[in-house]
């Protein structure tokens, strides 16, 4: 480890430059995050906050079934959304990396990212139009005579939330996988086939393990943020499709119980982080087991 006195001029300059964004992130991220941790150990006493240290909020979350139900449902929805998104995205990333001419790759990526940048609220609402009682799918199926009555299991429940979130996070899953696939040395694949592997077994034994870091990146970048979305469950979920983020939002903005809301946010974060770490660990073990 280098000592401060031995820093080169270039290093000092680099530290100074990084200082500004670091201070910003410290003030607007680290300090606020620290303050919600502190808040979660306080309690709301009607209009004022009682600042005696207590674990009452956490005990309440542990004891009342509604919070654990919402949390379990949230984790399940995030898990399914992640699995669906990554599984659907992998072939697309593979196609762009291996089958698209290099000069056309960025136009494909551009086409995939455009829907992601367009008004999130309106995009979620449009899924209501597609999945609704007299929406696109139902009226289409009715007209074709496939069904006699509109399908109702596709709106205002957990299914609708999963479909909408999987759509919203699709580009997030493609990009990390694509980046890793691009780095794979193509001669390895040739070597594998020269040694008698079929195309499919080459994929299973060479391409897939080498692309695992990208898959892990995709899983994390979809799984972690989806837990914090309250727009989709609010619009699409109906009564039975509400998630933990809706409860956090309600505690803060309607029930005016910031300490309980803070505790819920922290519990949700801890669960997500723990599951992510377990996933990363298992993946490392799997990759090590192969080499």
């Amino acid at each position, binding site marked *: 480890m280098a000592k401060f006195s031995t820093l080169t001029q270039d290093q000092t300059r680099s530290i100074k430059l990084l200082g500004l964004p670091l201070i910003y992130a410290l003030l607007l991220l680290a300090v606020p995050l620290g303050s919600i941790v502190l808040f979660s150990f306080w309690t709301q006493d009607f209009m004022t906050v009682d600042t005696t240290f207590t674990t009452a909020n956490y005990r309440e979350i542990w004891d009342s079934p509604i919070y654990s139900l919402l949390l379990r449902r949230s984790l399940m929805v995030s898990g399914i959304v992640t699995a669906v998104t990554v599984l659907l995205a992998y072939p697309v990333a593979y196609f762009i990396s291996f089958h698209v001419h290099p000069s056309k*790759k960025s136009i494909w990526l551009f086409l995939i990212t455009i829907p992601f*940048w367009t*008004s999130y609220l309106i995009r979620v609402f*449009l*899924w209501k139009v597609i999945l609704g009682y007299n929406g696109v799918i139902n009226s289409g199926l009715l007209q074709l005579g496939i069904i006699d009555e509109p399908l109702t299991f596709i709106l205002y429940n957990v299914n609708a939330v999963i479909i909408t979130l999987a759509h919203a996070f699709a580009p997030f899953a493609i990009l990390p996988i694509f980046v890793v696939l691009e780095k794979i040395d193509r001669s390895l694949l040739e070597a594998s086939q020269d040694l008698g592997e079929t195309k499919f077994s080459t994929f299973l034994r060479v391409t897939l393990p080498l692309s695992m870091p990208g898959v892990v990146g995709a899983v994390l970048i979809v799984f972690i943020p989806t837990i914090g979305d309250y727009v989709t469950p609010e619009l699409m979920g109906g009564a039975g499709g509400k998630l933990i983020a809706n409860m956090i939002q309600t505690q803060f903005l309607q029930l005016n119980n910031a300490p309980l809301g803070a505790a819920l946010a922290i519990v949700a974060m801890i669960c997500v982080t723990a599951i992510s770490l377990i996933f990363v660990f298992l993946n490392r073990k799997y990759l090590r087991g192969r080499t």
Partner: protein
Amino acid sequence: MKLLIYAIAYLIFLYAPIILLPIFAFNDATIIAFPLSGFTTEWFSELTQNSALHAAVQNSLIIAVCTAIFATILGLCAARAGAMSDFPGKKGITGFIMLPLVLPEIIVAVALLVILRQVLGLSLGNWTIIMAHVLICTPFSIAILNGAFGALDPAMEEAALDLGESRWSAFRLVTLPLVMPGIISSMLIAFTISLDEFIIAFFLTGSNPTMPVYIWGLLRFPKSLPVIMALGTILVALSVVLLTIAEIFRRRGVRRAGGTDTGGFL
């Protein structure tokens, strides 16, 4: 071939909701459902008369422009530092600055709400949203500008220094023009993110709502839905134009700095 068909089907899935927007924006019916009834531009003319919407759009534009400028400045500092020599702890610091990229937005929102309202007792307004948006847009700016700086040949700036320019003027005259396309691209991306951001804005908005917060309010009234479709059509068209410009500049930046394009914003 099978993969190509799959990829095209996937693109259709991605674009399915967006394609519906203009269809219903020009549809002469108050219910957003099939079958369509007729062509009208009524919903667009209604947009021009809604003063509450105009105020919200104006708010959002102010927020988005400020966010674009500040996030890009912070991104420039970080990306420039990233291109310089490593020092102990640099990776950790950069990782921390990039953290909002993976942090659930609701966590950022509640954390800022607690510190601003409950701890500091400040009132909310456009500036609170700007602060939060700068925080979440900076990682995107850094990612784009890293591409611009990473492709840069450090010998060019050194040459300017050897020829007697000061450090600042060498940066201004040589490096800055080379990374300018990256800067423009970063500002456009930050602008687009901020203009569309709802989850944080809903928590931190003061008495004057931003455009997404205003739209959220409208979504509860079935009568206003066709107008939202019209507004959405304009927004989608606008973001496609902005993103296309951003992409052109990003590519030009990578090319100008002598790198090869690897594609993608992230």
